[in-house]
């Protein structure tokens, strides 16, 4: 059933008994053309674009738990594309181009809210690197502009631009087309749209092994719900990539770390945009429900526990109160943790693997949510055609051997 205000009205007369399952829950078939391992936003988007763009509908998405239950449902939903290097900017901008039309395309309100993303500069070094971003972005048509402190405060009134601060604000970069979206809706919207096009979404289905024939090509997966054949396998399993790839004997340049976030109790609107600070180490926005959404730093050690140290939460809150001292009397309501796959150069991997039929999409680190539509779109191209989309090509695994890294981390210190 098409979602619309009219449909809601009609259903309200019948006690909303007419709504169907938003996505089918089929038993797995014996084999598929493509099996996507991982039912997060990126995996579901990949399946959707395989079906909608490439006409490949004999597709299954296998999810160990519930769809969107990994980093898709655990992130702070920041969307932006103002990355430093040309390759990264092109990649993230590909996603940002897709966001505005996505709710209509999927017929699911993802609540994409381009309210602006502001990156603060507190030191001359910050100014230096931030301006480099701004100028590089401008050349590539990305709307990232430099603001002086007064302009920054005009856009985000809660900012404390006084000299009182330990690290006073010297300026900011603002990407107005950046913003936030409703994370769960992204997973559910892609799932519903993909399911409608024939994609099988199979939850509670853990992949236990990757089957290969005598030539080494993949032939399918072993799962907790039995063997499933596959001509091609796309691994899109953030937080479990190393484990899944190990089933095919591939070692990955990844470390999986806990990343926490927290929200405050909801209050009336008081924070208009997204603000990030690398020097003071925090990022913050306010959800439509009124909660301040605050991201913490990754814990220093690798872990799959989906929990982290209380000191990481504390550091994030300290930073927020330093920049916004009126929030000292707000209260933390919820915190949670995800598992992020970090690459050595903090740029993702969209790549062949050296094994015929096996492809991997991983390493989005702390900032994968923003890339969801672009990542799915490009990875679908790769799976359908067998070769990387030109935008994705620089993000191959072999860059770690050649040394052709795309080192956003070195340049920006922290990426979100």
């Amino acid at each position, binding site marked *: 059933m098409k979602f619309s205000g009219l449909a809601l009205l009609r259903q309200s007369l019948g006690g909303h008994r007419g709504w169907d399952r938003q996505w089918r*829950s089929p038993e797995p078939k014996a084999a598929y053309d493509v099996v996507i391992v991982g039912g997060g936003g990126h995996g579901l988007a990949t399946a959707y674009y395989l079906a909608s763009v490439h006409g490949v509908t004999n597709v299954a998405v296998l999810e160990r738990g519930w769809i969107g239950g990994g980093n898709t449902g655990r992130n702070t939903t920041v969307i932006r594309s103002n990355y430093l290097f040309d390759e990264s900017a092109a990649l993230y901008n590909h996603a940002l181009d897709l966001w505005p039309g996505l709710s209509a395309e999927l017929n699911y309100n993802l609540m994409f809210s381009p309210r602006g993303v502001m990156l603060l500069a507190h030191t001359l070094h910050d100014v*230096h690197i931030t301006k480099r971003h701004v100028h590089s972005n401008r050349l590539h048509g990305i709307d990232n502009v430099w603001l002086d402190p007064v302009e920054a405060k005009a856009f985000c009134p809660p900012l404390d631009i006084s000299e009182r601060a330990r690290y006073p604000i010297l300026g900011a970069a603002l990407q107005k087309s950046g913003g936030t979206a409703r994370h769960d809706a992204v997973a559910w919207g892609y799932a519903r749209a993909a399911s409608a096009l024939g994609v099988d979404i199979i939850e509670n289905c853990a992949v236990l092994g990757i089957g290969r024939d005598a030539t080494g090509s993949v032939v399918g997966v072993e799962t907790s719900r039995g063997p499933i054949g596959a001509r091609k396998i796309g691994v899109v399993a953030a937080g479990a990539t190393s484990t899944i790839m190990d089933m095919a004997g591939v070692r990955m340049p990844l470390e999986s770390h806990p990343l926490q976030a927290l929200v405050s109790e909801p209050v009336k609107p008081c924070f208009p945009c997204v603000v990030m600070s690398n020097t003071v180490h925090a990022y913050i926005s306010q959800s439509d429900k009124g909660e301040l959404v605050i991201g913490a730093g990754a814990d220093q050690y690798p872990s799959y526990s989906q929990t982290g140290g209380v000191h990481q939460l504390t550091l994030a809150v300290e930073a927020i109160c330093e920049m916004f001292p009126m929030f000292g009397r707000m209260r933390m309501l919820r915190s949670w943790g995800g598992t992020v796959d970090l690459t050595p150069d903090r740029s993702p991997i969209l790549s062949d693997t050296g094994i015929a039929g096996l492809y991997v999409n991983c390493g989005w680190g702390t900032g994968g949510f923003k890339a969801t539509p672009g990542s799915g779109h490009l990875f679908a191209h790769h799976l359908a055609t067998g070769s990387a989309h030109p935008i994705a090509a620089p993000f191959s695994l072999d860059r770690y051997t050649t040394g052709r890294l795309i080192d956003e981390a070195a340049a920006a210190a922290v990426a979100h």
Partner: protein
Amino acid sequence: MSVFRTAGGDAIDRSRTISFSFDGTRIEGHPGDTIASALLANGVHLMGRSFKYHRPRGVLGAGTEEPNALVGVTRGPGRFEPNQRATLVPITDGMVVESQNRSPSLARDIGAVNDLLSAFIPAGFYYKTFMWPRSFWAKVYEPVIRRAAGLGRPPEVTDPDRYAQRWAHCETLVVGAGPAGLAAALAAADAGGRVILCDEGETIGGRLRDMPRATIDGLTAGKWIVQARTRLENAGVRLLTRTTAYHYGIGNLVTLAQRCTDAGGARTRERQWMVRAGRVIIAIGSIERPIVFPNNDRPGVMLASAAAGFLHRYGVLVGRHIVIATQHDSAYRTAIDLAGAGAAVTLVDRRARPAADLGEACSAAGVTVITGHIPIDTRGRLRVSKVAIAPAPDAAHRWLPCDALLMAGGWTPSVHLHSQSGGKVAWDAQSAAFLPGTTLAAQVSAGTCRGRVTLADCLADGWTAGGGNGASAPAADDRTDTGMSPAEPDAHPEGARRKAFVDFQNDVTAKDIRLAVREGFRSVEHLKRYTTNGMATDQGRTSNINALAIAAQAMGQTIPGTGLTTFRAPYSPTTFGTMTGFTRGRLFDPVRTTPMHARAVAAGAVFEDVGQWKRARFFPRPGEDMHAATARECISVREAVGLFDASTLGKIEVVGPDAAAFLDLLYAGRLSTLAVGRCRYALMLREDGFIADDGVIARLATDRFHVTTTSGGAASVLNVMEDFRQTEWPDLRVWLTSTTEQWAVAGVTGPRARNVLAALVEGVDLSSDAFPHMAVRQGRIAGVPVRIFRVSFTGETGYEINVPARHALPVWDAVAAAVAAAGGGLYGTEAAHVLRAEKGYIIVGQETDGTATPDDVGLGKMVAATKPDFVGKRSLMRAAMRDPDRKQLVALLTADRSLLDEGTQVVDPASPRQSLGHVSSTYPSVTLGRPFALAMVHGGRSLLGTKLAVATAAGPVAVDVVDPVLYDPSGARLDV
């Protein structure tokens, strides 16, 4: 005082009356009252409006579980807090309380129109609409929704209060000072070791305070609590009340939030305790569940336990005509107590045949008992006025008039902290509850939070958990039970169009949950997220199990088969101030200053933050801006002499017979050939081949080197060095000592630098033959032994005088006087950067960005490629690292002599959208008489002498690509 105040109430001080305002009305209460108890004592039940439908609401609970009665509290300027649970906030004289989420008033709220529209806005409605037209979501719909959402108004001014933090260590931490927790702490204190006992309440006792007729070891409950406190205090137990354990972390680190004072001011308002405990005893009790039936949310409808709490703690009767709906035993005691306090009480039990002795006790107390009935509806706009009861939802009903309706839907053990510790929970059919299961943490749950029912069981359980011998546990007379009788959560069948609330604050109804199940949201996490059940500020304390029961019924599953969402910190909402503790303002991050900092301040320096250091950026004279001051400082260095505080440079003393071999491995250059008394510039690479740091290395003796690092790199360079020393080449006989702060450094540079030193230094021949460029000597200035390095970061003759830090000021003053006498002066980092850039000297972190090799920045000759190995060598051999089209360091001169902005992009005018590189440094230069820039440009060295462009916001600016050494290419000025 109010007619609803009865005798009793252990929390309040009846001898005093204080007042506060609630929405402008003056309300009186006693010290010890909460906002809720004071309002109820005055007959005020309407305290809030719900989040979505703006339904009128009163209190549901009496404690931390409260979803409805949220208020904003002001205690003076800056001391406003939204979303306070009225059931927790003690009243103070003169405080101002406001209701929330209503307009214009609590009684008449236009938002209540949502309640009429509720048929159109079921769970998840917003995912299905607001999609057209495309731009309207962010511009129209979202702002409206955002304004409608949110609870209280946000705090708007800087929080004026003080917060603190403290680490603590103990053998036993007991969380919760109810019967089980007290017994546990008593036993642990007897056993010895450090014991900490915390409780979120205003005082100890927990639910025991609501059982005045219970006796323990022959004492009434109240007397036993007093005795227990004395015993604990005498045993040295640290007793923390008003203290909530909000986070249970790995390694048994439990974080507590202590509310020290509600008033604020000079006192610490809240204190965070970080407790590392040998073992933790969790005794945090259980929370009563509401009953899900239509219109179960009117003011006056509350939990039976809440009514008991208000009666026993505050002496407040929640109504005169009270109906209690129950499906198990615990409500009977409450019924009897309420009747004893003067209320007319009717008890409606779902069970057809409750235990006979309970019925007899009720009769004796004058309580009417109706069995085999359930509540199915209520009436009353701003306060419940009657309740419909029937044998079944669709059976014939009758109305019972009432002014309070109490729900006793069974008890939910609080497994939050157990779950936070990494413990599993398991469904226990007998208790009809999830109970603590296995855990790897050194913790144990005790009392009702693990399903113990009677008071005697709870005391014994706590006593045993605390290490006591079971036989010597405090003994309670039984049937005066805690009333924690199990009851299967009620899955109220699908009913009429009226709303049966599950999550009161978020307005999630039973129908919403069934709708979500129909739409395929079958995982408990999906259910939670789609309906928002359990995501309100009460964190699902009263709603999670009921929601689960309804979902399980809708799916035809069992409750344990449906699952439970994960419990996450915080245990209850915790202020940011508490989490921040001391870490605010000056204590947010250390400010590091050099020994000469006061002199820079006195000289009027403008500082910049470099890491944690404050460095003097320039020294403006009256009327000068930064450019003017910097130009003057540059001229001073180029034409006379300048003095620079270089103390922040990292310094490491590398000592041992293998020191030279070690440095050969750590640095790209060769240090083993360095003669004693000489210095060499060196690059440290990362193992991936990119520049990590640079500095000057001096050889003080065959086996002793003085290594300098960048200011920001000092700690990481030492870390890398220690890593390789300890783990990769542990056989090398070499040790590292950080001497960054041992030495203060005065940099003297300029054509008159040698003259300045000549007047000051004893014991050093300053002639170029005796003390050439890139050499080190030891001498004395003002009687202080100093190390003098003849190095230059400006292109002029230069000396860096290293002085033991505690003697820095006299030496600095002497040097400064000599510099001034020579016509020079102080210069700051800005001038230093201009001067070095004119010479084409790089700054690591500015020309390099973690992706530059030595060759990229024109320092390929600093790499001793013939060394068999050094950190980063292998990586430099990779194809991409030797690509001739890598970005290379050049200088750019604008044709129009304009100053470029840093970070601007270099382009070929023929293809202006394609970046060829970026401007890494850009300055006006008084020396060159024009602005200039350094840039990293693809294949830059092959483009020297060509023209490119730099893309600016105003359009392309033509530039000449030239060699990066723009000043004194021959180096003659280094030896003036």
